[in-house]
């Protein structure tokens, strides 16, 4: 199962990215869990600077902007 993390302090862009990740998982049929991480200590552990950040299996894929559904689907099936 893939692990998707959306890191950010909960701003509108973070929420949109999180919803897009849920939709991408649904549309792609890939087995994945989606986590929203708003805890500052965890964000610091991952050296998050600009937000939101999208990670897949502990690898940063998108940072500082909203990732759209199709983009996330492509990343899931890479």
């Amino acid at each position, binding site marked *: 199962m893939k692990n998707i993390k959306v890191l*950010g*302090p*909960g*701003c509108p*862009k*973070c929420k949109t990215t999180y919803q897009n990740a849920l939709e991408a998982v649904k549309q792609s049929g890939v087995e994945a869990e989606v986590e929203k991480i708003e*805890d*500052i*200590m965890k*964000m*610091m*552990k991952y*050296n*998050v*600077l*600009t*937000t939101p950040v999208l990670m897949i299996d502990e690898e940063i894929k998108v940072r*500082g902007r909203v990732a759209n559904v199709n983009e996330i689907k492509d990343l899931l099936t890479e």
Partner: protein
Amino acid sequence: MSEQTLIKEICPTTTRDWLADGALLVDVREVQETEALAFDEADMLRIPLSAFEERYSEIPKDRTVVMACRSGARSLRAAGFLANHGYDNVVNMQHGMLRWAEKGFPVKGSEAEKARKGESDCCSQPGCC
């Protein structure tokens, strides 16, 4: 402001004392924000968060560094980044430019006059989080 223990946080008043004692202020806000309203401090660096990963090595490791932004959120992440990259003397200025300007501390830029009167809307624009 945040439940974290990695980075010490100080207020704008304490920040001014530290700057007077030789600490370096690092502003991580984006260019359009700093052009509108900037800390009027002679000895400081401006490294936008969007360029921080490439430029953080411009920050000296042998000085105490106070990180700042609009509200203290972005600067806290930048401070955490520095702590994870070998910087031992990094603190975060809580409440950022919002509180600094509110306190009437030195500012400059196109919004400075308004900020001094507490009217600046520059601080109300979300510089993102």
